[in-house]
C-alpha cells in the first residue's frame, strides 16, 4: 500500500469526500489540515497549480478533488462494476454537488444567510432529492448505483448529514434516502471516523 497524505483546509469543502473514502476503505492516511493563513504563507506555493486539496501518493502530488476521489474510489472498490455504473455514480455525485455548492457558506450576515439557505433548499436541493428518492425507491436496492456502496452513496450521506444538522425535518419526504444515509454511516470504518472527526459547518 502506498503512503497517502491529504493536504487541505481544516473544513469539509473539497476534502471531506477524500477523507470519507479512506475511512470507508479502512486505509490509513496522513490528514494534513491547515488554516487560510498557513495556506497563503506556506502551502500554496508547494502545490502543483496553487490549488488544494492535494493528495500525495508516495510523495507524488495529484490535485483536483474529482481526480483524487475517482482514483481512490476505483482503487478501493467504490466506483461501480463497469463504465456505465461509473458514469451513473459520477452523475449522482455531480448533481448533488451542483445543488449543495449553492449554499451560502461564506455569507457573514446571519439573517441573509438563513434566507438564502432556505431558498437554495426549496428551489434546488429538495427538488433534486425528490427526484433521487423516486429513482431510488423504484430501484428497490441498497445503494444508489449497482450492488455495492459507491462514492455517490458517500456523497449523499455527507450532504444529508449536513442537512440533518441544519434542519432534519427537511428530510421527512425522503425516507429511502434517509435509510441509505444511516446504512452508510453505520458501516465499519465510517462509523468510527464519523464518531471522532471534527464537525465543520461546511
Amino acid at each position: 500500500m502506498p503512503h497517502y497524505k491529504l493536504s487541505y483546509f481544516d473544513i469539509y469543502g473539497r476534502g471531506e469526500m477524500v477523507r470519507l473514502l479512506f475511512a470507508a476503505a479502512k486505509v490509513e492516511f496522513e490528514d494534513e489540515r491547515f488554516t487560510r493563513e498557513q495556506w497563503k504563507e506556506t502551502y500554496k506555493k508547494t502545490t502543483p497549480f496553487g490549488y488544494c486539496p492535494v493528495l500525495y501518493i508516495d510523495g507524488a502530488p495529484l490535485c483536483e478533488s474529482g481526480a483524487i476521489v475517482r482514483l481512490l474510489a476505483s482503487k478501493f472498490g467504490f466506483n461501480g462494476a463497469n463504465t456505465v455504473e461509473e458514469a451513473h455514480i459520477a452523475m449522482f455525485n455531480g448533481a448533488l454537488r451542483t445543488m449543495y455548492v449553492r449554499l451560502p457558506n461564506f455569507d457573514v450576515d446571519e439573517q441573509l444567510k438563513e434566507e438564502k439557505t432556505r431558498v437554495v433548499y426549496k428551489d434546488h436541493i429538495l427538488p433534486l432529492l425528490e427526484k433521487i428518492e423516486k429513482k431510488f425507491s423504484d430501484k428497490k436496492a441498497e445503494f444508489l448505483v449497482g450492488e455495492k456502496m459507491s462514492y455517490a452513496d458517500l456523497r449523499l450521506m455527507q450532504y444529508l448529514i449536513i442537512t440533518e444538522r441544519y434542519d432534519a425535518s427537511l428530510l421527512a419526504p425522503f425516507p429511502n434516502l434517509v435509510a441509505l444515509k444511516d446504512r452508510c454511516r453505520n458501516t465499519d470504518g465510517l462509523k468510527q471516523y464519523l464518531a471522532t472527526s471534527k464537525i465543520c459547518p461546511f
Partner: protein
Amino acid sequence: MPTYKLSYFNVPGRGELIRLLFSAAKVEFEDHRFEFSEWPELKSKMPFNQVPVLYIDGTPLCESGAIFRYLATEFGMNGANSLQAAYIEMVHGVLHDVYSKLPFMEKDAKVKKEKTTAVHQEHILPALLKIEKKFSESKRQYLVGDKLSYADLKLTNNLILTEERAPEILPQLPNLCALRDRVRNLDGVKQYLASRPESIF
C-alpha cells in the same frame, strides 16, 4: 455501437468536449442543439433539470463530467490505467477552473475584452506555463500517457479560444501550441472544427 444523442444549448459550453470526443473517435451521434428560448419547456423533461444530457440507446445520462469520462473510456481516450485517468482529470480540471473565469456572460464589449485579457494574464497563463514546462520536459506527444486523451481535446479547444481572444500569451507556450495543432488536424476533429457553428461567447 449504441445510438447516441446529445441534448444541449446551441453553444460550446459544457457540450463542446463531448462533441469533440465523438469527432475524434469518428462515432456518429445526434447533435441536438436548442436555443435558450426553448429551455423552459425542455427543462422538466431532463432527469435532473439540467443539460447536457446524453441519451445512450434512449437512456439518459446527465452531468457533463460523467458523460465525457464515460465516452472517453469507451473510445480509448481516458489513459491506460486509473492513475493516468486521474492525471487526465487533473489537467482537465485545472484548465476548466482557469478558463471558466472568463467573462462569458459580460454584455459590455469593452469590459469583456479587458476582463478576458486580465483572466488570461492572472489565471490562464500561469497554469499553462506550468503545464508547458512539465509537457516539454516529458518529451511526449500527448499530455498524459502515449495516446490522445480528453485532456488534449480540452486543451486544444481552449487554446483555439485563446488564439482569438488573447493570442499574445501563446508565444510562451510553444509545445502546447504544437500539440494543439496536431490535435486540430486529426481526422474527424478537423472536419468538426471546420463545420461547427460560431459561438456567441
